[in-house]
């Protein structure tokens, strides 16, 4: 049983192609400072694993992700903040590595458009409601004279009453 277990673990090494011996303990980080620990776990979700099909550093098993996690840990322990680490990674891998697009010329539309759209849509809504309010004048924008509609309403009311009896 022990032998098969070791064989399975060997198989795991083979399929995952990790070089473990050098980095065995580095994967597992322990921070004394809870603030640093929070920052570490938060940052892992901010960066993209470049080898993967859309995963962040927190979830990825790729060896490059492990290297980057190690690097981020070192930088946090050295007192760097998120901007420093962002810049470090972007200098090497480009903006692609950031899951949170930095606000700038390229991304202004991205960040602003949804709210601009909301404002526009709310404005349209106000106009639509205005158009649908029963106006006091004879001309209804809908194209139907108010009087005619009221006339039909009355006849329907009459019909209803007749049906009820």
């Amino acid at each position, binding site marked *: 049983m022990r032998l098969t277990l070791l064989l399975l*673990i060997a198989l795991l090494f083979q399929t995952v192609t*990790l070089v473990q011996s050098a980095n065995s303990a580095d994967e597992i980080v322990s921070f004394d400072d809870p603030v640093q620990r929070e920052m570490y*776990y938060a940052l892992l979700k901010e960066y993209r694993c470049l080898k993967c099909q859309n995963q962040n550093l927190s979830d990825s098993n790729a060896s490059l992700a492990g290297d980057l996690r190690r690097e981020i840990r070192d930088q946090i322990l050295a007192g760097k903040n998120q901007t420093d680490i962002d810049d470090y990674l972007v200098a090497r891998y480009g903006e692609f590595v*950031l899951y949170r697009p930095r606000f700038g010329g390229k991304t202004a539309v*991205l960040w602003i458009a*949804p709210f601009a759209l909301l404002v526009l849509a709310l404005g349209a809504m106000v106009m639509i409601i205005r158009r*649908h*309010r*029963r106006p006091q004048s004879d001309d209804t924008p809908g194209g139907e004279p108010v009087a005619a509609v009221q006339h039909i309403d009355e006849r329907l009311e009459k019909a209803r009453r007749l049906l009820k009896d």
Partner: protein
Amino acid sequence: MIPELGQFALILALCTAVVLAVVPLAGTITGHTGWMAMARPAAGAQAFFVSLAYACLTWSFVTHDFSVLYVANTSNTSLPLIYRLSGVWGGHEGSILFWCFISALWTAAVAVFSRSLPQVLLARVLSVLGFVSIGFLLFVLWTSNPFERLFPVPIDGASLNPLLQDPGMAIHPPMLYLGYVGFSVAFAFAVAALIGGQLDSATLRWMRPWTNIAWMFLTVGISLGSWWAYNELGWGGWWFWDPVENASFMPWLVGTALIHSLAASEKRGVFKAWTVLLAVLAFSLSLLGTFLVRSGVLTSVHSFAADPTRGLYILLFLGVVVGGSLLLYAVRAHKLTSTASFELVSRESALLLNNILLVVASAAVLLGTLYPLFVDALGYGKMSVGEQYFNAVFVPLMLPILLIVGLGAMLNWKRDKLSGRAVPLAVLGVASIVLAALLATQLLSFKMSAVASLSLAIWVTASTVYGIVHRLRNKRKRLSAVLHTPAAFWGMSIAHVGLAVFTVGVALTSIYTEEQTVRMELNDDHSVGGYTFTFTHLDEVRGANFDAIEARFAVSRGNAELGDISAQKRFYDVRQDTMTEAGIDAGLTRDLFIALGEPLDGGSAWSVRIQTKPFIRWIWLGTLFMAAGGLLAALDRRYRKVGVPSTTSDRTARPAVRSDKNGQGSSASIPVTTRVSVPGGQTGL
């Protein structure tokens, strides 16, 4: 033999689809009733042939026919039967055939359950559905034929991706496709309405249950996808805003707007043009989703193997269907004017606001999903848009919806006053906040974000319950009143409460999840989120088609022993994939989640990722309520009594007479092609 039969059946299906698309539509132009009458039999024939083709492919899977290339790529002799059956839709070619199958079934269903629809309308609707069918059948036959043979025949197949060998994953595509394709029915009606230049309340009443059911399936499908990701992928998350996830979410958002807009259009004759546009958009987004997932244009863990040729075909198809219908909309929508009026404080306004928020949210998701593509196409390089963007944009858009959900459901149509209800509502509002603060502090810990989200969820529930109480308030015989209240009302209430439950799950999990990745050896223990986990056993186990290393952990909280959790690292025989099978201790108030990372120090220790996830089950519970609500609403008796079939011409001027409970007046659709409905006499819903 059987695969060739399947291929032949597909060709015949395509022929019938052509007949279905062309002949009835031609009949509406020439006035030839015989041609229009071809619609139903053509729909039936199409369903027969596509079902036959699908059955042939299923047969090839079940009988291990590895001479079929698709079966060889997707199946294996050691694959359990259930996954051979679900493997039919596990790869690209089969899943497109599956789409054709579902589409043919929906089309046939429309043909069967439409005795009361005017012939011209039905002919147009079925023709449109036929066109859509042609597109997909042609796609299968031309670029994605699942019946291609493979010589020499391999002894065994490549097997199904182990990630797909899970019951949740097996049923997730059928549910999704039933939803996507279901929206094609609303789409067909919208196009038929645009062609005919009218959309009357009888037609709208016919459309509502179908759209509700499609929406229900899509809700279930997306929920299953999230459920599967949580249970099978080993990262403990339930939504990543991945492009493929977004591709299914966008039609859902627009579909939700659609079912609400249908209500207003049917009851009051307003927003008809909007309803039509939403129907077109919902189905367009479904098609767009198909494109995104199969074309390789976006990177995703979920996408099928990318093929730009297929992408080009779908894009062209998209261009014809979406472009054509949007052009038709631009030119014909003016015919669908509404004449009814409503005030600022009315259910119509609330629904309008609700729909605007949903559509803007969908647009935001679309923008975020495609933005990297836009930037790259313009030559500005590569960038990523991750969950940070989507959460930042989507959540603020959803908050107002939560505010108005309960409120809108109790407002009267056309004109209402809040003054009479201002005090009870204010009381409910304050009570929600107080209760939220109490619950947060008692159950977890005080955090403003949690209190805010919980307040909203409690508010939705409270206002929904208030609406129910208000509706039943003057009834002497409560039980009889309950039974006489339309199913649609209960469905709506349940769905809205489902939204509240969902919000609780999302908020509390996001805010209070605790996680740590630690190195553990046998007999080590570690504490996360108030629970202690002790590594007790390490074994190897053998599954149906995999070997695994299993780690067992004993869980305790304080002094109480809570049982064991087992987490596995699996090695599948055939594909040599490695999979992480997380150990999950499920609970209504929290999940405990353990995933094995990598072996360390030559295997004497493991990296273990431990998470505590409060109230995460409420997420899927909430979606379950929403789906149940949708189904209940669709089964409302009133939809089945759509009216007397027309024996004379279509243009009979018999207005629909319905008054709602508070005597707000009736709605008349002019011009008129309506049926006299059998009114329930209740507040219009």
